[in-house]
């Protein structure tokens, strides 16, 4: 069962505060202040701390001492990612260096004759990539749970202006988002999902992930396989203090077999890629709730 309720923690005051700190003190000052925030979050975000602890102890099988250290590193990296996102969306994007892996292949897919499904994760900093899509950004549609979208919209758009992409809000009580997704794909646009969170427990796919069984939302994988559009797994990872890498992985086309549905085959590919990225940057996994069964 997922503990994630479709909402993201944090208020607009915090975002506004960090914007001022970045503006007047620079990124280093924001990172320094973050150390204090991390100390606050460890006891006061108890559920998140428990899930982070589980992640280091049970998934990565780290020692007790190392897990304590990684708890700090985990929160600190999460904070850095948010600060970087705020900085990049507030006009400081040139402060960072960016590296692109498989970018030519990715652009070939975007320039193709069909819509494209892009599946990312709450890993790294996917939002920092928005402004690098240039002419493609207008055709990007990010699918987001309505509650999360409204909160992010209220928090961020007030202080940082409009996002460089479109949002398709998902409300489980309505069906309109299905048609918005379908119509975007029919217009040969790009529809982006996060493949690692769900609120609807009716449509789940299960797969062994990092050595343990975990649930994933069926939606992104089912939509990609049913509408038979190219699928790209997309991750943006923080490589060092001011450097990000954008990585694109083209999924192999999937076909239903006697034993396995195509969405399950697509999920398997996604899990494999995500595991390989997590092996390099385990501290950039930002699902602070009970993820594994």
């Amino acid at each position, binding site marked *: 069962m997922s503990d994630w309720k479709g909402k993201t923690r944090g208020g607009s005051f915090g975002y506004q505060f960090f914007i001022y700190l970045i503006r007047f003190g620079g990124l280093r000052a924001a990172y320094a202040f973050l150390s204090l925030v991390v100390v606050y979050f460890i006891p006061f975000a108890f559920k998140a701390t428990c899930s982070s602890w589980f992640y280091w102890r049970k998934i990565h099988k780290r020692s007790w001492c190392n897990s304590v250290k990684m708890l700090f590193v985990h929160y600190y990296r999460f904070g850095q990612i948010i600060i970087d996102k705020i900085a990049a969306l507030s006009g400081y994007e040139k402060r960072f260096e960016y590296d692109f892996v498989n970018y030519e292949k990715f652009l070939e897919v975007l320039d193709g004759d069909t819509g494209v499904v892009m599946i990312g994760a709450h890993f790294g900093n996917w939002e920092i990539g928005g402004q690098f899509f240039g002419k493609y950004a207008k055709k990007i549609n990010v699918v987001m749970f309505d509650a999360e979208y409204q909160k992010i919209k209220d928090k961020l758009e007030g202080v940082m202006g409009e996002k460089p992409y479109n949002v398709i809000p998902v409300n489980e009580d309505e069906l309109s988002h299905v048609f918005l997704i379908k119509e975007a794909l029919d217009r040969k646009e790009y529809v982006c999902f996060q493949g690692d969170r769900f609120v*609807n427990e009716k449509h789940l796919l299960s797969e062994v992930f990092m050595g343990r069984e975990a649930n994933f939302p069926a939606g992104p994988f089912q939509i990609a396989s049913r509408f038979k559009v190219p699928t790209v797994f997309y991750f943006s990872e923080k490589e060092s203090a001011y450097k990000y890498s954008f990585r694109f992985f083209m999924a192999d086309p999937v076909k239903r077999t006697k034993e396995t549905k195509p969405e399950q085959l697509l999920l398997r590919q996604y899990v494999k890629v995500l595991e390989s990225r997590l092996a390099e940057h385990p501290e950039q996994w930002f699902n602070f709730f009970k993820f594994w069964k």
Partner: protein
Amino acid sequence: MNKEEIISKINSVLAEEFEKDESEMVPEADLLETLELDSLDIVDMVVFIEQTFGVVVKGADFKGIKTFQDFYDFLDRRVNNL
């Protein structure tokens, strides 16, 4: 394809796809409630309509569809260009 053929085709495929008895699919029955469709089932439904009848379905089309009769009428209009 005449309307009777369309209705027969729809009912048999929907019964198989959504594991329902064809006898439940009476014209005045509510489409979504009878088939217990949610958003991801709609994806299957849209793909089924496109593949079977070659008809592109948009959100606005679906808004006017409440009952099986509405659904039959919609497909009849689109398939036969009425």
